[in-house]
């Protein structure tokens, strides 16, 4: 139906049964009638907006190149650092250069509410190799109105292996235990994740975390715990925490698990990831409103979320595939031979005490939480 609508929709004519039947008929015939022009469309270039760096390298090898090889359609990649400002401008101007965007789920939710994205149905997804329908194969919460989760990344704590002789941190509460684990910490200069970990250190159940953080009392308890740390290096760019750890300027740091993996495996930095309390977030594919080739974009998403492609991506960067069938197919890193299963956040051993970020909560409260956190930070730094 989508093809018919795009090329043949008679504007303003209410759909009678007859025209509806005609459309159906046309929809059935379309692939037969226009098979040749569809081939020709492969001259069209699919433009993907993604995050650059090691992540883009992995996507090129696991997704973009195989996609071009199988369809003949070239893929061009543009980089961004998240945020909706660029997309908002492009949609307003009516000149959207991208067909597919790699977004965090919380941003995709916000963009969808603003009407910046096209609705996306999970019906387009391929079933698992064993025939399991996509609805059952994907992890819960993978399907938004406008976005489909492909991988799950985590914010975790990493620590220097040589910092605490004879001991190692085992719970997220150890991040705040400077008696047993002395030394400076590096934390992201945001309330998110820090507040969660600080409150978790009081041993509250994960299920109640956001309810408790919604009270003044809970926020104060969390900030009190953060305030107990003597020395905090606040980071903003994702590559800072592995660097601070590598240089030995901090002994524990929060950061993205992929970056820590990169430092650990590819650069031999003596660090270890503490999986307890890891905060998982969904990374999704979305199609912007006004994209040049939405049909090709859907085709690409179907291709890039097959079990095989997701498993291949996770072999190159340790982000958890959103499909259960893909998670069990992840093997070793193609270059280093490292068993990637042990490094992805959704592996059962790592995910045992994982925390799902309440993105709906953040979508509504981020402004106020940021202000509150900013005030606290200003008082702390003023002292």
């Amino acid at each position: 139906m989508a093809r018919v609508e795009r090329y043949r929709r008679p504007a303003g004519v209410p759909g009678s049964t007859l025209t509806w039947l005609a459309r159906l008929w046309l929809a059935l015939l379309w692939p037969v009638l226009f098979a040749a022009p569809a081939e020709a469309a492969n001259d069209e270039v699919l433009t993907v907006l993604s995050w650059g760096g090691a992540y883009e390298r992995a996507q090129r090898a696991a997704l973009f190149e195989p996609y071009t090889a199988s369809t003949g359609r070239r893929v061009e990649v543009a980089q961004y650092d998240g945020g909706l400002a660029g997309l908002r401008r492009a949609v307003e101007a009516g000149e959207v250069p991208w067909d597919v965007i790699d977004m965090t789920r919380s941003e995709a939710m916000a963009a969808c509410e603003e009407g910046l994205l096209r609705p996306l149905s999970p019906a387009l997804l391929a079933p698992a190799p064993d025939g399991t329908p996509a609805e059952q194969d994907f992890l819960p919460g993978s399907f938004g109105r406008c976005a489909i989760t492909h991988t799950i990344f985590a914010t975790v704590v990493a620590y220097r292996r040589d910092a605490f002789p004879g001991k190692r941190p085992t719970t997220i509460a150890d991040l705040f235990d400077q008696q047993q684990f002395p030394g400076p910490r590096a934390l992201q200069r945001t309330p998110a994740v820090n507040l969660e970990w600080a409150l978790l250190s009081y041993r509250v159940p994960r299920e109640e975390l956001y309810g408790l953080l919604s009270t003044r009392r809970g926020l104060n308890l969390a900030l009190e715990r953060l305030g107990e740390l003597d020395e905090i290096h606040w980071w903003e760019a994702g590559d800072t925490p592995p660097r601070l750890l590598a240089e030995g300027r901090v002994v524990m740091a929060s950061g993205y698990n992929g970056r820590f993996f990169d430092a650990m495996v590819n650069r031999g930095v003596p660090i270890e990831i503490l999986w307890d309390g890891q905060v998982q977030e969904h990374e999704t594919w979305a199609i912007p409103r006004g994209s040049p080739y939405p049909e090709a974009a859907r085709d690409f998403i179907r291709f890039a979320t097959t079990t095989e492609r997701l498993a291949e991506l996770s072999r190159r960067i340790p982000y958890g595939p959103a499909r259960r069938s893909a998670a069990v197919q992840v093997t070793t890193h193609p270059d280093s031979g490292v068993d990637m299963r042990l490094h992805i956040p959704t592996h059962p051993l790592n995910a045992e005490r994982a925390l799902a970020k309440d993105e709906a909560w953040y979508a509504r409260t981020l402004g106020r939480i940021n202000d509150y956190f900013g005030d606290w930070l200003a008082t702390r730094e003023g002292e």
Partner: protein
Amino acid sequence: MLALRALRAYTLRMDTSPALIGPGRGPLAVVRFLGLVFLGAIIGAIAALFAVGFVTAVLELNELLLISPRSRMMFDHAGALMAITVAVPALGGLVVGLLHLAIPERRPHAPADVIAAVQTRRGRLPARAGGLSALSALISLGSGASVGQYGPLVHLGATLGSLGARLLRLGRSDDNIAIACGVAAAIATAFNAPLAGIVFAHEVVLRHYALRAFAPVAAAALVGYVIATNVLERGALFHVADTAVPMPWEFAVFLVIGGLGALVAGAYMRAILGVTRLAGTLPLAPPLRPALAGALLGLTALWVPDILGMGQETLRFATIAGAFGSGELLLVLGLKIAATALCLGMGFSGGVFSPALVIGTLFGALCGSLVGQLSGAPQETFVFYAVCGMVAVTAPVIGAPLTTLLIVFELTGSYALTTAALASVTLASPIAAQLFGRSLFDIQLETRGLDLSAGRGRAVLRSTPVIEHLTRECVTLLPETPVSEAVTVLGQARHGEAYLVDAGGRYRGCVTLADLEAAREARGGPQAVAEVTAAQRPLLRPDTSLWDAMARLQDVTGEALPVVDAAAQDAFLGVVFEASIARAYLRHSDEMRREEHGTG
């Protein structure tokens, strides 16, 4: 006027009395028993599913109506939020008040009604009133009233059990077991604690231990637990640092907390009962009372939001050292007691357990922080104080020390914590029972005229009206009947006494054959039976209980006691033979003995 068939009828009833038929043994009894266990499991599953649905619906309503802290935080209009905080409980109260108009007693049914039904062996919980009560509890909890959810869950489970027993046309005894099954499943599901569910059903509802009831109840609790673990994802009520073990002297403090907790529990129960009494004297239509309570609650919550709703967040913070200052603890403790008393007393529907959990934990936290300030020790064992306070207040309120201990044990798996709780409950329950009563439910029932303090035996006899054994098969005489004729009539009927009833049907007294004979012999004596000295005979009223009739029999030698309706100008209704009273007494005792000691 004559009743000659009296004796024959009487003999017949003696033959058909079921009292002496013993319990069955053998394969058929085993099959029947297994059927009862299976029924328990089915009731458990249904009650558990309803409980899960109820709990989920309350949480959803709290999100929707901006009661839960999470939804309040996510709602970004301070002014509108203030208006909603007052309006939601007030409107919720209005709806609840209107719903209660459809219940015959004009009040929600609660666990006390379950206890009454089982303790008087009546069973048969009304389904419509039960459903309406559950609905009004859902609205109360959903709109943020400071009431508990476990009471409504228990009553809902019990109603479902009773309904099941009725659908299968089971007897009263099995009806009571089915009720206990629903109760056990509700507790097992809500707390994720099957043992606590089983013990609660025995300790609070059945109040005796019988294998016949145990197996179905255990099956129900088990099914409830399995359903809960697979459907409900909830955080455990407490977390304990593995390393912390209290010092020996701290156990003495836990005992003291128990003693003081009994007083807090007493204050809590008195407050609820006091507001209930006061509400009755308010010049305000009953449906408006909960609305007023809701508005007051909302206004107070603008100042102290901790008192709104079930208070899960408050409960959690109270187990964390340093989350509250001592002054704050005292303030929230006092306001939570007041808010709960206000809500329950003014007619919101809901339980007393969840608020008691919050109140007790706040009280324990208060003790813990005071001890910490006095001893200067690090607060590693703070959660022990919180839990001790919690059991010290909740156990007396629901009259279930073992259940509260088991809840602590099953939720924490910590032996150290359970031992500390045991120290606390050791003093709390007996002190509160001495000062106030076995539980809030028992006190409520006593005000409604059902005294359970002497156990089930008396309760059953007290709630069985003697009128069930009324017969008119006795000799009644008009007062003006000549003495000689009266003697003849009595002789023919082979009765020893006659009752004088005038033409208007009013009772005029009782004469014995011996008195009549004496009067006939005496020269110049009375000519009509009315003039014969009447035998002193205590009267029964239509609502006199078997227990009271038994008590009156102690001073009587005679055949029967007349039943007279004082409300209808002393109308004579008939008599109850002494032997019927004794027989009924024996039958009830025997049934109870069989229920409590039989195996199948």
